[in-house]
């Protein structure tokens, strides 16, 4: 389990990183925390000709509060978030999610941008940030664009990231006090990738919902319309109105054919709803 030979660059600033990416005429992989890419290299599941290590790019470790959102650099680690080393605008939601990612050793090195770029549907940030309504800034030498997380991941390990482009920042909207948050994942053991994720952000006062069913074989299911799952406009009694049969039908439609899998997903979501209402 040793990687195939590869070239290695460690640019010192974002401009240099983007230049290396733009110039590369070979297959390239960006490495940050390396918690997924490292094993994949060792297993020779990927054999890039060039690795661009962005851990030396200071801009990507910056965090700032801008108006009603928090802008988090891609190289902020899960542990930075877990430990409260960066500000929080989610009333603790992100800290709790971060603290339950894999193991501490993974959280020490793994980065939020790296996890999103890897686009593993079983990982936490894809689902949690979709529920939080976060957006990403993607940057290349040609410029930048902003996409919602749910538009960024398009399938298992598949995103809309283009050649030469990098996840620069994550934009997390501040969570108003009226919002209810629930996040539940089902793992067979501590630190394992999730087999089911249910995430909900519900604002009864504004009658808005963001509901995510994650850790399925494809991109998470993100719903912003309450009518289906809750039988109409969101009100304070949404917990009672949650309809697991609808969730089950949505999963069936999404191609989750195994009834036991659907049962676990539906119940993870039900618990997230219950947690939000608690």
């Amino acid at each position, binding site marked *: *389990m040793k990687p*195939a030979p590869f070239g290695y660059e460690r640019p010192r600033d974002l401009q240099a990183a983007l230049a290396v990416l733009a110039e590369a005429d070979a297959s390239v992989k960006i490495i940050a925390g390396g918690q997924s890419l490292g094993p994949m290299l060792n297993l020779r599941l990927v054999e890039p000709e060039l690795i661009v290590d962005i851990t030396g790019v200071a801009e990507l470790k910056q965090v700032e509060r801008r108006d009603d959102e928090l802008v988090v650099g891609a190289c902020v680690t899960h542990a930075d978030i877990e430990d409260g080393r960066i500000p929080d605008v989610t009333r603790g939601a992100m800290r709790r999610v971060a603290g339950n990612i894999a193991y501490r050793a993974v959280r020490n090195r793994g980065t939020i941008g790296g996890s999103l770029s890897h686009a593993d549907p079983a990982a936490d940030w894809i689902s949690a940030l979709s529920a939080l309504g976060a957006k990403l800034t993607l940057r290349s030498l040609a410029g930048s664009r902003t996409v919602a997380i749910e538009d960024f991941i398009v399938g298992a390990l598949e995103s809309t990231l283009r050649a030469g482009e990098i996840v620069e920042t994550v934009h997390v909207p501040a969570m108003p006090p009226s919002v209810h948050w629930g996040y539940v994942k089902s793992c067979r053991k501590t630190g394992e990738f999730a087999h089911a994720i249910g995430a909900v952000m519900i604002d009864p006062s504004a009658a808005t919902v963001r509901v995510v069913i994650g850790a399925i074989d494809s991109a998470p299911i993100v719903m912003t319309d309450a009518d289906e799952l809750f039988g109409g406009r969101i009100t304070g009694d949404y917990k009672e109105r949650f309809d697991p049969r609808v969730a089950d039908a949505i999963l069936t439609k999404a191609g989750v054919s195994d009834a*036991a899998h659907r049962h676990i997903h539906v119940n993870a979501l039900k618990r997230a709803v219950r947690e939000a209402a608690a």
Partner: protein
Amino acid sequence: MRNERDFPSAGGAGVGQGVGARLPRKEDDRLMRGRGQFVADIRLAGMQDVAFVRSPLAHARIRAIDVPERYRASVFTAADLVGVKPIRAVSGLPGFKISEQPVLAIGKVRQVGELVAMCVAPTRAEAEDIAAAVTLDLEELPTVYDMRKAREPGSALVHEEWGDNVFLETNFEVDISRAFDAPIKVTREISTARQCMSPLEGRGVVATFDQRLDQLTLYSAAQMPHITRSGLSECLGMDQGRIRVVSPDVGGGFGHKGILLPEEVCLSWLTMRRSHPVRWTEDRREHLTASSNCREHHYRITVYADRDGRLRGIDCEATVDSGAYSSYPFSACLEAAQVASILPGPYLMPAYRCRTFSVATNKCPILPYRGVARTGVCFALELMLDLVAAEAGLEPGEVRLRNLVRPEQMPFDNITKKHFDSGDYPEAMRRALASIDINGVRARQRRGEMDGRRIGVGVSIYCEQAAHGTSVYSGWGIPMVPGHEQASARLTPDGGLELRVGVHSHGQGMETTLAQVAHEMLGVDVARVRVILGDTAMTPYSTGTWGSRSMVMAGGAVATACRELGERAGRIGAKLLQHDPAAVVLQDGAVRGVNGSVTLNEIAHTWYRRPQDLPADVDPGGLEVTSGYKPQRDSGTFSYAAHAAVVAVDPDLGEIEILDYVIVEDGGVLVNPMVVDGQIYGGLAQGIGTALYEEMPFDAAGQPLATTLADYLLPGPTEVPAPRLDHMETPSPYTQFGVKGIGEGGAIAPPAAIANAVNDALRPLGVELMQSPITPHRVVEAILAAREAERPAA
């Protein structure tokens, strides 16, 4: 001379350094500080690394192996290994079919991961680059991936020359027809998953050749270095004297490291061919996909009982997936053939029948894993006894108490002629039931849980035959039959003690426990006892560490050698004291008589450094003794334990939490109860893995599907509860000090206790789980199936 420490009172010690002392482990100073030396830590000048080209297919004919021109000198295939013989592990049991395992594949490949070519380079990464450049032209053959389909006519054949896929079929019967009219008859199919043993350290090999000694030295992470030497000698056609096997620190064995590896043969050949040291370190993917497989059993079993829960008989057909080859030295039938003899466990029954099949498939050879067949057998039988309890309307614990062998029957020969040496099995079960508070759990179940989970309680009990010797193994006719165990004891000129034993320690703490035995016999401070293990050049021959035998056998041998050494020292001491040798005693490290005393230090100093002070008629034998030991009966010690578990099952997510776990264990006299506690904790962790997590699935093409530890789940610290342990110490009447083997027991009973607890929790829902591991998906699937079955037909 009398030696007052020959037979100390059982369990009475607990203080000092001798038998019964909870002494911290000597080896931990090195191991816990990261100063151990494992195979992968060995650096030899000029050493190069090996990577293997392995078969990507489970069953295929090799049409060609294409090696790029630039790598020709670095790649070796079977065609290069002229004169190297295949690994043959033959069993003498009648009807056993022989498999020949080429060390590099010849003609066809029979499992994913089988070695096809060996690539050598200055670093492992470069060797893997070369391996990646070698291309195999393979003609895929139909795959034998399901052991039960493998027995059907028309199945593809793993070894064409056999005509079928059965290594061995065995039949055993006692009066089974007398059970058929029993009022309770329960039949089920029960299965245990294929697992990987997963010690922290995988296998690893460094091979080098010493021109001066004309000797091959193989460093290997091995449990049984002397057996490895025999196997290498057979494959390489070399005199055993030209081979030295050294097993350095080993990070867990569990059976996996008792096996002669094709890699060991390959590297031995390669270092002689290339004249420089070579190394291969197993990586985790190799470990999971190409090695270390174990445990895959299937039972079709019927239990007959009377209305009062008393067993009338058991009828079983057991099938074990033995994989592609018979592994050396334990053979391909170790598991299945043992199933027949150990299935009745510690229970009384008048009738019994068991038919077993060791089936060849296109998978890794099945290897003995801690508990060997007993874990599967315990799972099958104990799940069935809970069903008998349900039919009889009795508490599961009560059904056990009515059927367990009783203390007044000891020693006891059971229906398969297993000879139980001692013990009080019902007492262990009673203590476990009391400790788990069975009545309290039942009351809690009646109240129900606020969080919607369901509580269940389960028990299991087993017996573990350990340290079984010549009389048991000679009948098997495998390449290894244990005889007398040898140990050497030597007083050094400064009064220290060196012990040399041929077993090995890979987590068992034998550098401490064998020193405690020596202390018990000679009174030498354990800090001054050095235990030398794991090196064929430095230790007497031994079959090694397996079968929970080392404390009984090597402990007995150390005691015997130390006793003899003490007698010799006593004779010298008596001379120095001018005493009649019959009038002195050896006590607290000194020879004492009415005239005074002389310490072992002084005796050693005189013998080695001042022989002029010895009389002319001194015994010339000196202060170095090699002696051998066998228990008075070599049919094995029988340790046992009752396990009890309380679990909470979440019917929504299928998750299982172990709320409480109790183990009441009887391992005879314990040399170091703290070391035994550690053995039980570790065994429990592995048992929980078997129960809830570990599974190596295969697809219909014979591809192993759990190729990393992200897919092959092992329990971690948060999954293993802190069990409550209770020791009974019934001495074995046959062994030195009354010790029994206990190394494997912790891993035997947990799957059964946990499964019974889960089934207890879910029985009101009509759910029954008869397969390990019990995963959330299987729990939910079973709940949904039960709901479906309950739904009235439309």
